[in-house]
């Protein structure tokens, strides 16, 4: 079945812009990205859109569809009524470059601020051995495709540009959690307490666990329940729990 859908697509750049109306053909089984491509092919040849895999794995085609941060390639047209207007805008937490393309370099800057995995002493690359039960929590976070929808929807930076220097965002706090839970990470041996650092250096305290990051994650990673809250609890261990503090003073704790 084919029908004509009404689209409103944001066109413009950093100096200004607005929503433009288009009527576009929609066929069964298509996704929003297909329609954007049809727009490019038929009505707006200069429409800028970032995309790559069309399979929900590259994280390139992040945008906001009817106000909700989504991957355009994973948003089926069948979820909309045929008469419903579909509004597509660029991510609203980041500077726009042109049309649907935003400058997400904030995220790369934050990525660089997270200290990398520290190999255990005396173990060379290729010699890492760990049990599946020990590493599977971290593996959930490795599903991240870095679409930055969680960063886009997080109100800490979306609604407060001034918080960007202090707050790493859910994606990179999850990265810290991943490393802190990693059975072989030896950062503590070098004096880096990742959980405490998450709060002191990466703004974990800004997170008020309202779970929007989890809601928008296309990989269905339980960012809040499995990464951010455990990281907050680990920070409490290090900073606010006198029993754990005392235990650490008396003897070295190795979980």
């Amino acid at each position, binding site marked *: 079945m084919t029908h004509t859908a009404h689209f409103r697509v944001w066109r413009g*750049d950093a100096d200004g*812009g607005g929503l433009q109306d288009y009527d576009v053909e929609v066929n069964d089984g298509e996704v929003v990205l297909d329609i954007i491509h049809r727009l490019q092919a038929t009505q707006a040849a200069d429409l800028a859109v970032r995309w790559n895999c069309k399979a929900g794995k590259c994280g390139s085609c992040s945008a906001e569809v009817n106000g*909700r941060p989504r991957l355009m390639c994973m948003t089926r047209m069948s979820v909309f009524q045929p008469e419903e207007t579909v509004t597509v805008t660029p991510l609203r937490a980041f500077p726009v470059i042109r049309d649907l393309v935003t400058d997400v370099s904030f995220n790369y800057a934050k990525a660089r601020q997270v200290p990398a995995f520290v190999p255990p002493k005396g173990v060379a690359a290729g010699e890492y051995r760990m049990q599946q039960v020990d590493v599977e929590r971290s593996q959930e976070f490795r599903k991240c495709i870095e679409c930055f929808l969680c960063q886009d*929807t997080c109100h800490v930076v979306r609604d407060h*540009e001034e918080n960007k220097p202090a707050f790493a965002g859910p994606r990179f706090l999850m990265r810290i959690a991943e490393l802190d839970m990693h059975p072989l990470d030896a950062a503590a041996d070098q004096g880096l307490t990742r959980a405490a650092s998450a709060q002191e250096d990466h703004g974990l305290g800004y997170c*008020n666990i309202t779970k929007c990051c989890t809601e928008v994650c296309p990989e269905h990673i339980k960012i809040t329940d499995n990464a951010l809250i455990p990281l907050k609890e680990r920070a409490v261990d290090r900073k606010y729990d006198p029993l754990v503090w005392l235990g650490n003073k008396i003897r070295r704790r190795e*979980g």
Partner: protein
Amino acid sequence: MATGTTPSSDRGVFTPGRAAITARHLRTDKWWLSPLVSAIALTIFVVYATWRAFANGDYYSAPYVSPLYSPCLASNCTDMNGGADWHIFGSWWGLSPALLVLVFPLGFRLTCYYYRKAYYRGFWLSPPACAVAEPHATYSGETRFPLILQNVHRYFFYLALVVAAILTYDVVLAFRDRDGNWGHAGLGTLVFVVNIALIWAYTLSCHSCRHIIGGKLRHFSAHPVRYRLWGWVGVLNGRHMLLAWSSLVSVGLADLYVYLVASGAFDDPRFF
């Protein structure tokens, strides 16, 4: 280039450089429904619980004691026939004895990770819903006083375990009849059993519990028992929101039941 209007504000989604869109959000679904329902439900419970906590009456009808009044720690408590009426605060306390104990479950729920989400969204609109701009000019989250105190959640969890144990004792006592003879049960007993089951499920599904029981470990393989327990708590934790609401409702209903029986509105139907 396309034309459009320029947003009046320069904060948040209207920050210069971001896509110039005048609307605070473009969501077309009923995003306001969930925070509104949460806010209304929480308000109803808070109003009801405040009334009952200050009422200082109709909280005991043998063998049932309202969960809002147990343990009863002041001398002005009703005699509870073997119940948890331990007058450790003596006679100087002249207000409702419920106020002495409600601070513990209140603190537990107030700092709960789920309820935080519910009231941050429902009352403080921070944010009201995902990708809906919040109204506040600044935001410091839980980095400063007073919200940094949310980090004490685990201590309220420990206290909640004690409260849950005492409420369990009350449920055991509910298997007596009005004169203290064992082996009896009424509709109130059933209400109490359901309530305590939900309270335990909610308490054990707590994120702090999940962390303490095993989440803090880095090597599950070295702690197989704690790993198993962590898995079980994780199953409950996945239903934390459901358990938070259902236990809140059950506490309110258990108290209401005791109130109705104690005030003579109806007699407790006895099963055996």
